[in-house]
């Protein structure tokens, strides 16, 4: 299982690649400044990465919906307004800057032990992606199946015991109905 963790870490390439940021004091970031597509592949063990069409999504969603307060847009969530009403644009809008890719590691957990910390419940990187995407897709009728966004890798097929690893009639595990 050690190798698995290593894998996770080593595949932690930058999810959002060469995004050039031009801080513009006093005004929010423009969607047009963002890249056309973003490859999200930092955690691609069981599933391959996602070629995320960022340009398309900027047409149907506001920046704040995914990037929260970091793009400097107007924050509407009453829970966020308490602190981020005027926090302005952040230095970076990359998901993994804030969302830990080693969620639930000892380090991650001990950081959250800080009693002064408000964001004790900030999802990890994988959680952040999925919670953001899937929740919105469910509401707007976007694709929600796992393989609608990313195809399963061989490692995935092995773990899910599907595809060429699917159980056959004869090898199917015994189920004690009684």
């Amino acid at each position: 299982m050690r190798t698995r963790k290593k894998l996770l870490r080593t595949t932690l390439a930058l999810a959002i690649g060469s995004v050039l940021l031009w801080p513009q004091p006093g005004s929010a970031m423009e969607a047009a400044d963002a890249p056309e597509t973003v490859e999200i592949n930092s955690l691609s063990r069981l599933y391959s990465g996602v070629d995320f069409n960022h340009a398309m999504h900027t047409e149907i969603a506001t920046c704040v919906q995914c990037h929260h307060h970091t793009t400097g847009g107007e924050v509407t969530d009453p829970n966020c307004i308490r602190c981020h009403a005027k926090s302005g644009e952040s230095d970076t809008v990359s998901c993994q800057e804030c969302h830990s890719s080693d969620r639930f590691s000892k380090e991650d957990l001990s950081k959250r032990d800080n009693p002064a910390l408000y964001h004790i419940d900030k999802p990890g990187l994988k959680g952040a992606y999925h919670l953001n995407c899937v929740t919105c897709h469910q509401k707007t009728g976007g694709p929600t199946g796992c393989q609608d966004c990313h195809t399963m890798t061989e490692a995935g097929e092995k773990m899910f015991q599907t595809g060429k690893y699917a159980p056959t009639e004869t090898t199917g595990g015994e189920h004690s109905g009684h």
Partner: protein
Amino acid sequence: MKTTVSRRTFIKGGLAGTVAATVLPEKKSQAATFEGYPDGMGVLVDLTRCVGCRSCEAACNEEQKLPQPEKPFDDFSVFDEMHHGQKRRTDETRYTIVNRYDVPGLDHPLFRKIQCNHCQEPACLTSCFVNAYTKTPEGAVIYNPKVCVGCRTCMIACPFYIPTFKYSSAFNPRIMKCIFCYDTRLKEGRPPACVEACPQEALTFGKRNKLIEIGRQRIRETPDKYEDHIYGEHEVGGTAWMYLSSVPFDQVGFDTHVPKEPILNYVKDFLGIVPMVLTIWPALFAGFHLLATRKDWLKNKNEDTHEEE
């Protein structure tokens, strides 16, 4: 940490003593209830996040080296399976299960993951007469197949119907249940395989105390989204695995009638009389004997004295 486990040790001591028919000195001064190990870990399951992808089931099967399933883990027809009018449950081939619930008035189904809840004061553990179960300081309830006799009282005692038995085996049966990935992960401070596999972070791993804080925060900040209850915070004296739901818990298959105190509390009435019976009965019945046979004794005595005369 020693003092926090006092009640269980107290009762153990008390009963061990009574079996040996000796009276132990009282140890009343210590805490009356066991509130769990302070640094025990847990998992908060958020039903509003679960999408029923069954990744946790697949990861568990791989991690625990369980037998191959009947259907692949990406086959969602399993949600329609029913046995005896019941949805799927844990068994000797699977430590965790996700079930789908179509809640009336809700436009989407809800999914609920079942596994061992790793109680703070586990009924399986307290009912086991060979000490096969252990609640580790890390929070897991683990099982030792080497001493298990196969009486299955733990299965009777578990309010969540979690322990399962390998009925199919005659020579090597054992209890099969989720052990929080204790041997391979939790011991080293790592989250269990299911938590790591969950894409939605529907499973949040952390110190139990912290998880209650997190759960409270979610309820407080999005009150429209959640029932104002963390299932497992107080159920059967508290569990390491806890649940948040958007609908009343009984609508998604939870037993909301389980007691809010440890199962052991129900057994204590009986355990309490054991030392009493052991100490009072002998004197009481010896006394009865002397009273009941007094006439005979007097008669014998008189006869003896008459004979002497």
